[in-house]
């Protein structure tokens, strides 16, 4: 039986990597490389945004890790695409 990895797992992985990259760029900017043309630099948006993306990405990656889905749920092919079920709507 084919089991499909949920889209949210891929979303989680992508957000985690993006979070790390943006966080690293933010740290580099703090240490002197910031573009003077950016408004609201004092907010250190890259740090906040990068941190938030990394956190969100990790939550989704762990929550929808393929083996967890396989172990916890028995789905039909095609239905396994999915993810949060109707009851959460």
């Amino acid at each position: 039986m084919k089991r499909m990895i949920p889209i949210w797992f891929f979303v989680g992985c992508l957000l985690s990597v993006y979070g790390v990259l943006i966080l690293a760029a933010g740290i580099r900017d703090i240490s002197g490389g910031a573009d003077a043309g950016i408004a609201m630099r004092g907010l250190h948006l890259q740090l906040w945004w990068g941190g938030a993306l990394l956190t969100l990405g990790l939550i989704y990656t762990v929550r929808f890790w393929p083996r967890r889905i396989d172990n916890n749920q028995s789905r039909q092919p095609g239905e396994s695409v999915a993810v949060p079920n109707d009851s959460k709507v």
Partner: protein
Amino acid sequence: MTLNAGALFLLPAGNTHLMVLSPTDLIIIILYFVLVLGLGLYLRKFAGTSNDFFMAGRGMTAWIAGLAFISANLGALEMMGYAAATYQYGIIIAHAYWIAAIPAILFLSLVMLPFYHICRTHSVPGYLRLRYGEGARSVSAVSFAIMTVLMSGIDMYSMAIVLKVILGWNIHFSIWISSLTVGTYVMAGGLLSAIFNEVLQFVLIWVGCLVIPVAGLIETGGWNGLVHRINAAYPGQDFTHLWRGLGSATSNPMGVHWTGIVFGWGIAISFGYWTTDFLVVQRVLAAKDLRSAQLGTILGASFKMMVPLIVILPGLLALVVLPFKLFPETMAGIPGVHTYNEALPLMLARYCGPGLLGLGVTALIAGFMSGMAGNVSAFATVWTFDIYQPFIRKNASDQHYLTMGRWCSLLGVALSIGTAYLVMNFSSIIVYAQMLFGFFIVPMFGTVILGMLWKRTTPAAGLWGLIAGILTACGLWLWVKADPSALRYVAFSSHAKDMAENVYRSMWTLIVNLLVTVVVSLFTRPKPDSELKNLVYGLTSLPAGQAIPVLKRPVFWAGVVAAAFVLLNIVFW
């Protein structure tokens, strides 16, 4: 509904560009391309039958179907176009997300989806065949196939031109890299690939663009601070009220009366687009059951209500935080001049440092590519089931239609590339293509809804109503083109701008479509009841749903969304 998006194509193709990407930004963009290609190849093994390929196996949950449904509409073209329009006209553009979306989406969910779902149609033209016969299906299928290819090419070209203006990228490079990527993943996974990418796009657009309102509201001192600064900068002009300036066509910058907003935009265009445009409806038809389709649609409506946060708010913020004014597209190309359509990219460049800028640009690229993929997958479905199967090769094997769908996806991409290059040479075609889109979609609503709710509607009426609607839309457009003073009849005001003309033209189109359908029905022979089972109200067994708890009933959540919709209109009245 990209009523203003045509203007986007007037962006200059000069040598200067708005942003410079860092290596981190480039890595973020490249990672996105790698992921979507990988996803397409991964999903190929799950698209083994035509039902998998064209309808994603009808296995989507409410969340996935709902997010794909709303993402198919949330393209980068629309976002940039409406942010630009907000800079010009103010918060009135939020009507595009509220009155011109929410009632129609809820209507689709509660009234129309049961019919689409129960008759198990593959497409909206497929429903028209069941209800009216081959004539109405042929007209709608052919016009829809042409529209999808046109729109996909327009998405492709607009992405290329925007990337050239923003980043200085070569137009041909952008067209070919995007089309190869989209062609690969749609050919591999069909609707499943398109839906996966739409969900990805939805997430990227939110995380990529939300930074603008957050930073912007902090800079302006919150909503009240923003309103105060707009009023101080533009005395005597109302940029921050939805309805207050709509008492007269002369008292708002769009030149539209409230009747145009309600009947033209809120009913004709909105119901036409949200309930009969197969591009969006296909997403919820892929849901695993009727309740998932209905809940997914309602979920989509709730997200749609929030989109102004990342589109309208940046347009309003641009009015006061940008250190220079933006100008109409007619001034594009003048050194140092930025145009309305650059509002959103300029706001991204204002607040986003390395990394965040790459994320924002990736969000825009994802929006364009998923727009292309949506159109290509819808084209493949309509071509295979509504043109190829009935007219070219009936009764072939499932595998044959699956193979046809895969090659048709590639054909759709190839035609889109052709359209993109055609558009490049004749830029005004794009503006007309946007209007053609409205010409063919709006009349569909009258034909479909009368067919669903009135069993007396006859096959001849379905066909002639559709044709009369299309001819009315084309005729009104040509009339105003030939004689601009005709605007005072078509749009009730000679002050009407393009958007106002569009909404009133759509209103007349729907009225004629409904009238012709009713009149022809009264003089022609209807189908017997036995042929209308599961297609028409009164002859269809709709699921009762009493056994479901209140919190899981679509009608309950539709009520919640409707209440939020009313509240938003009161708050921003």
